[in-house]
């Protein structure tokens, strides 16, 4: 017999400089709710468990199909996509908290700009000479390489791996697993490889790949099962080779 109501315990905070507090909500049970659809109910009926009408909880969401990466939060302590987490699969009360490693905006909303700036830092793009048609394709890519690259190209910058990583936190400079995965992705492309050196240098300094403590938490929480630790291991090899090259070049 399912619960007759859905019971939430939500960590709230009015803004970055306000103190956090906990608030509980109870709403009527319906089958097939996910965490976001339940939050949608609560924003229309923002009444807490004490029966007080309160400001609706703030949260992020968009695609609702686990492809956009917007709705990451801690659900019963685990970083995951709220849209793809079914209420029926969770212990109650369901405890919702914002990701703890990123600057808080409000309630469950955080600012993950640091991830996007890391993508700029590691030059996670293929350098093309203009977007016009040059009447040529990219070089051929084997189906085998394509299928491995595809695993990494589905990274939605959701931040779950960053949240789970012990080396990534507000006081560290570590780039974190997701941007490293994108370095591997772009280094593995036949044209992207031309600028492999720039990307490797970007991860060889402070906050780079050597900051990885090999805790392996990232792969455990990645909602897309991206083999991040394989990429980090391979990048470890690539950076060592690069280091030796740089040494001889001096």
């Amino acid at each position: 017999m399912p619960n007759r109501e859905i019971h939430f315990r939500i960590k709230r905070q009015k803004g970055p400089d306000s103190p956090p507090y906990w608030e509980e909500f109870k709403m009527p049970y319906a089958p097939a709710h996910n965490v976001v659809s339940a939050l949608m109910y609560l924003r229309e009926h923002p009444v807490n468990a004490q029966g007080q009408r309160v400001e609706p909880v703030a949260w992020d969401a968009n695609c609702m199909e686990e492809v956009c990466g917007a709705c990451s939060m801690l659900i019963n302590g685990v970083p995951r996509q709220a849209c793809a987490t079914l209420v029926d699969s969770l212990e109650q009360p369901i405890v919702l908290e914002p990701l703890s490693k990123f600057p808080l905006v409000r309630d469950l909303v955080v600012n993950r700009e640091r991830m996007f700036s890391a993508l700029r830092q590691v030059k996670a793009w293929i350098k093309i000479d203009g977007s016009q048609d040059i009447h040529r394709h990219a070089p051929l890519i084997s189906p085998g390489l394509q299928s491995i690259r595809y695993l990494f190209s589905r990274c939605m910058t959701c931040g779950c791996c960053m949240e789970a990583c012990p080396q990534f936190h507000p006081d560290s400079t570590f780039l974190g697993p997701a941007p490293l995965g994108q370095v591997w992705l772009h280094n593995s492309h036949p044209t992207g490889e031309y600028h492999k050196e720039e990307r490797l240098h970007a991860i060889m300094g402070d906050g780079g790949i050597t900051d990885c403590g090999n805790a392996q938490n990232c792969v455990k929480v990645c909602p897309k099962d991206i083999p991040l630790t394989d990429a980090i291991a391979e990048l470890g090899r690539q950076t060592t080779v690069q280091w030796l090259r740089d040494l001889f070049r001096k």
Partner: protein
Amino acid sequence: MAAKPRVIVVGGGLGGLWAALRAAENGVSVDLFSLFPVKRSHSCCAQGGINAVLDIKGQHDSIHQHIVDTIKGGDYLADQPPIKTMCESAPGLIRTYDRMGVTFSRTPEGIMDQRLFGGVKNKRTCFAGATTGQQLLYAIDEQVRRFESEGKITKYETWEFLSIVKDDAGHCRGIAAMNLHDMKVHAFRGDAVILATGGLGLIWGKSTMSTNSTGAAAARVYQQGAKFANGEFVQFHPTGMLGHDKLRLMSEACRGEGGRIWVPRDPKDARDPRSIPEKDRFYFLEEWYPTYGNTVPRDVASRAIVKATRHLGLGVGGKDVVYLDLSHHPRQFLEDRLGGILDMYRTFSGEDPYTGPMKVFPAMHYSMGGILIGWEKDETTGGMKLVSPKNHATTIPGLFACGECDSGYHGANRLGANSLLSASFSGIIAGDAVAAYVKGRKQSAADVPESFFEAERKRQEDINHRLVSSTADENAFTLHRELGEIMMEHVYVERDNRGLDQALEGIRRLKERSQRIRLDDRGQWSNQSLSWARQIQDMIVLAEVITLGARLRDECRGSHFKAEFELKIPEGKFRGDPEYEAFRAQWKANNEKWLKTTVATYSPEGPRIDFQPIDLSVMAPTEPRDYR
């Protein structure tokens, strides 16, 4: 010396990112505005693929055929020269995406693979696993990030577009936008503005679209004088998965791989569907369409599902639900062919589609209509000029539109895998168009008096102030739910004039009520209720445009269906048969009357509708659509 040209792009999906990239490549500085980090845009939801004729499958596919399929697929309602140029540009676009590193699925030889999609006879669709839209979006996102790191594109993420700023000549000179953190409104100058704000599925309450696809931005420029075209043309996908929050798309591939649509013969049958024997199941598509069965086209399937549920009262449990069943197939077969899709169903429903049927119903999926745009014809090719300041220009000088929020390319119905194409192509064309436009400008936006910007900023601040201080009684989220109920009831797969009149009445009542919204959040920090309240007000305005267009169009064309005005192809009759030729004559007479673009102009009393001719210079409408 005039200031360096600077343009504003609103929206960071495929259309907006391409427009920003092209403007930047042309040496124009770009300010890019988005409600959220652009990488989270709705383009990432497109699964199936992108059409481009590569002719690599030995089927003698041709660009001409792509043009014909697109024109006929849209039931002739789209201007044809832009379609011609889009289809001709598609292979080059694909080559560029390939160079950007998109992980397109490959043949054993390592070249890009292509597959078959609906409404066409040849394999023409490039794809990247089951996440083609996500892969294309990320590729262009990366290129834009490169320009961002070089200082050529500046992103304003978590900013909401509220309005354009017009000068005294009525030219668009910038925008007013709200920072979604501190909720402050700022005015920004731009020598041109491109709107690339996507679809409007949320007007139906729930749709296959992302929760930010409200159409509010399009509604805002419409209320400032941009004309809106063909709003009544909306594609309903027959198999949307039911949900509290969204109707997730269950791909057409489910039916393609043998999925069967059924309902219990007795709607009160309360048994677990798995234990309902064959004799008590009604496979209505198979009974009604013995030739095609479950693989009838999207619009036919959607209409049949509505007939079974709403007309015959046979919906599962008496509700708007039918079963889509694949459980007769062996698990291994399903995992190999449809694994990703079925896993999504399992994730979001908690039910196992490998052993029992899925619950589905037609869902609002795509808006063919949108902001009316112009284009310049290339008289030598008969297509659209590739670079012209007239391309994708709205009816407000200096304001352009591209992507799903525009009205181009798809006419009355969109072909599968043509949306990623039109989103990308229209972004390229719009980006090049603004670059040409700003080079020809006489006065820089930097020289426009500050008073225009301050007045607009103040007007928008005042709207916010009124909303947060309102003591009235309406809940913005409840209004949205009710709007969705009206649209799903009356402006859906099948329409009739009585229902549409009721819908118009209901929408007008909602419009009044939406002026009495009271917010549960009156704060000035990350106030999502305030943002939503403004969006629902604008969604209601657009709902009226859509519904009035549907009310006035007394015919069946593409996705727009009114049984009362249906012209049926005589069964078993073909070209040359007298019955068929009589039908063709009727069809042509109907085209004389209705083969026109619906154009809505804003007035405070409600939309004014006119009809505009269509450029049919590529392929005259002599052959009715006929998928037999």
